[in-house]
């Protein structure tokens, strides 16, 4: 009946990333992530990771 509707039974990683990296409460200065076993500590940053196109859309400069 609803041929053009899909209900995602299992959410995709993209959907999850869009939310856990880009939304929610942001605590300034206390974000730690690590890439390839190297801890990266960011102090005083609100935005660390988001899709490049979102950054461009938001009008913010790439640092």
């Amino acid at each position, binding site marked *: 009946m609803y041929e*053009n509707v899909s209900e995602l039974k299992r959410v995709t990683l993209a959907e*999850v990333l869009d*939310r*856990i990296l880009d939304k929610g*409460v942001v*605590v300034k200065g206390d974000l730690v992530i690590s890439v390839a076993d190297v801890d990266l500590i960011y102090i005083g940053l609100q935005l660390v990771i988001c899709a490049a196109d979102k950054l461009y859309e938001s009008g913010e400069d790439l640092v």
Partner: protein
Amino acid sequence: MICVYGIVNNNRNCEFIELPGRNAIRIVPRGEIGGVVSEISPGDLEMRENNFWKYHEVLLKLSEYYTVLPVRFGTTLRDTEAVRELLSCNYERFVTAINNLKGKVEIGVKVMRYIKESGEEYCPVQKSELTGKAYIMSRLQQKRKKSIQQNDAGNLGAEINSILNRESERSNPVIRGDKKIILNGAYLVNAGHVDYFKKCVKEIALRYPDLKFLISGPWPPYNFVSIKCS
């Protein structure tokens, strides 16, 4: 250092949530609310798919029992005292946000248009086929056509969002006529109305057979928490 997952409407001391493969998750209380935290093991905050899923899993589990304000992935604080300080400094904001979101969940709706392989929507002119004025006129015509299509798509996105907005408590839409996804919306609905809302989406989809609809959720209300604090 400890990892902070979210802020919840809970003030019970040391409530533990057990999830396989995670350090014990507990609630640090402050007044009517609490911060959900766990110790960090090496690699927990590495940018790996597995960690993203685990983080998401914790928030999903929390949202089964509490109203949750999700905290961005990778947020860490020095110790329990720092969590209490965060809660104290932003207490009113957190309590207000939690009260506004009590009993509500987020549903994601994406609406996509089909870009036809035949190139009906976009058909570049081969420069070699035309020359001079004819080529420029052809490009202008294409540009105009594309602009109209984008405008129409944007209007469609706005129209669908307007209907879904009426069926939800709040919405957070991104409408882009120039993209394949013309509407990427998050809708806040009462937890008891999730099935009803999804049915509404499906009914709307029947009116737009040329568009593809994708529904996701229920999610914790990620898109309806916009709190920046120090």
